[in-house]
C-alpha cells in the first residue's frame, strides 16, 4: 500500500505492506537514525513520534501511519543546529554507544513538550520504556534536566 505521511515536516508517500513495521519502512526510506533493538516493544530504540506521541515503530504497522505526522531523530535538529536535548546529551555524557540515543532523545522530547519543568520522577517514568546498557541512566536523567533548563 501507499501511505501519505508527513515525515520530519515533509509530505511524502511511504510504500510497503500494510502490516510492515514502520521501523523497516522508515529505515528503507533512508531514516536509519531509527534503530532496531529488541523488536518487541521492550527497549525503545526504535521510538519515533507519531502525531507528537512516542510510539515504538517496531510495533506500529505502516497502515497505522496513514495521514500522520512522523518525527524521527533526523527531524529533531535543524540543518546546522542541534536541538537543546541533543546538546544536553552531549554535554552531560548522556550518550555512549549511541544505539539507545535516538529513542531516548525522542522520549525526552515528548516529555518536555508535555512537562517543560519535569521532576526527576516524571523523567524516570517517561524514559522507563527506553533501555540503555552503557550509561547507568544517571547521566541520561541529568541530560534531560539540563535540556529542560536550556529550553526554559
Amino acid at each position: 500500500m501507499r501511505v501519505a505521511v508527513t515525515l520530519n515536516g515533509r509530505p511524502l508517500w511511504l510504500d510497503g505492506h500494510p502490516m510492515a513495521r514502520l521501523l523497516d519502512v522508515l529505515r528503507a526510506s533512508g531514516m536509519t537514525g531509527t534503530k532496531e533493538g529488541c523488536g518487541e516493544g521492550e527497549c525503545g530504540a526504535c521510538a519515533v513520534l507519531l502525531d507528537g506521541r512516542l510510539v515504538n515503530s517496531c510495533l506500529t504497522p505502516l497502515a497505522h501511519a496513514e495521514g500522520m505526522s512522523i518525527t524521527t531523530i533526523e527531524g529533531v535538529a535543524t540543518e546546522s543546529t542541534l536541538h537543546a536535548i541533543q546538546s544536553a546529551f552531549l554535554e552531560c555524557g548522556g550518550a555512549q554507544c549511541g544505539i539507545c540515543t535516538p529513542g531516548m532523545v525522542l522520549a525526552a522530547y515528548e516529555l518536555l513538550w508535555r512537562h517543560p519543568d519535569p521532576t526527576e520522577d516524571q523523567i524516570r517514568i517517561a524514559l522507563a520504556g527506553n533501555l540503555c546498557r552503557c550509561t547507568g541512566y544517571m547521566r541520561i536523567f541529568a541530560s534531560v534536566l539540563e535540556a529542560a533548563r536550556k529550553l526554559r
Partner: protein
Amino acid sequence: MTASLANYELVTPDSLAEVLDDLAAHPGARPFAGGTDLMVVLEAGHLPAGRYVSMANCPQLRGMERPVAGGLVIGALTTFTEIRESEAIDAGFGMLKQAASDTGGVATQNRGTIGGNIANASPAADTPPVLIAYDAALELLSSAGSRRVPYAAFHRGYKEMDLQPGEIVARILLPARGVGWRDHFRKVGTRRAQAISKVCFAGSILMDGARILDVRIALGSVAPTVVRATAAEAALRGRTLDAQTVAAAIDALTSAIAPIDDIRSTARYRTRVAANLLREFLTQRAAG
C-alpha cells in the same frame, strides 16, 4: 523482520459498520487495535496467517463517558495514556489509572488499548483484574447486533473467550461505585517499569465497622486466565474481619489458584505473593 508478510492482510475499513461487515464476510478474520501485542507475535513468527481488520477508523470506540446514572463507559480503543490522563476516571476508579500506568512504558501506553488488553486474553494483563474488581460488563458488537456479558465470566480458559466469530469487544461498562468501598491494586513484577507481572492483585471491599459487607477480588498471572477469587470472597463476605477470617480467606485463595513456573517466576513464589497481597489488602487497606 522475520515473518513473511505475504501470509497476511491488514485492511482498514472506513467505519465501525464496515469493520463489522468485513469481519462477518471473512470468517477467521481478526480485529486489530493498537498492535502492541499482535506485532510482537508477528515478529516472533507466531501470528496466525490471515486477514486482520484494523479499527483505526472507529472513533466511536475511543474515549470515556460518564453516564447520567453514574459509572463509567470506556470505548475499547481507548489507550492506556488516555486512561492515565483522564479526568473522568478520578472519581472512584483510581485502580484503573494505576493499572494503565503500570502497563508497559509510555510508547506502549500511547498505542495499546484497553479492549486489546482484554481480547488478547493474556492471564498476565494488568487491567483485567481491576475490571473484575469493579464488576465490569462488556458490550460486544457484531454485524448481527450487540450483547452484554459480565466480564468475570468472559475468559473461559487460556486464550478462550465468550466471543463469537465476527464479534468485537466494543465497550467496557463500569457500574456506579457505591459509597464506602475501599480499593487496593498492586502489581508485582521484576522491576517497576515495563515488566510483565509475576502477580497482579485488585481488590475492592465494603466494610461496616469490623464486618465485611461485600468484597470483590481478582488476580492476574496465577491461573490460565485472569481470575475472580470467588472462594476467598465467600470466606470473607458477612464475616468479622479478624485474624481467623484473614487466614481462612488466604486458604481459600491459595487452594483455588493454579499458577505455573515460567520465565518470569515460579508457581511457589506466585502462590506466596498472592497470599501476601490478599493479607496486605485485608489488614492494611480494608481496616482503613
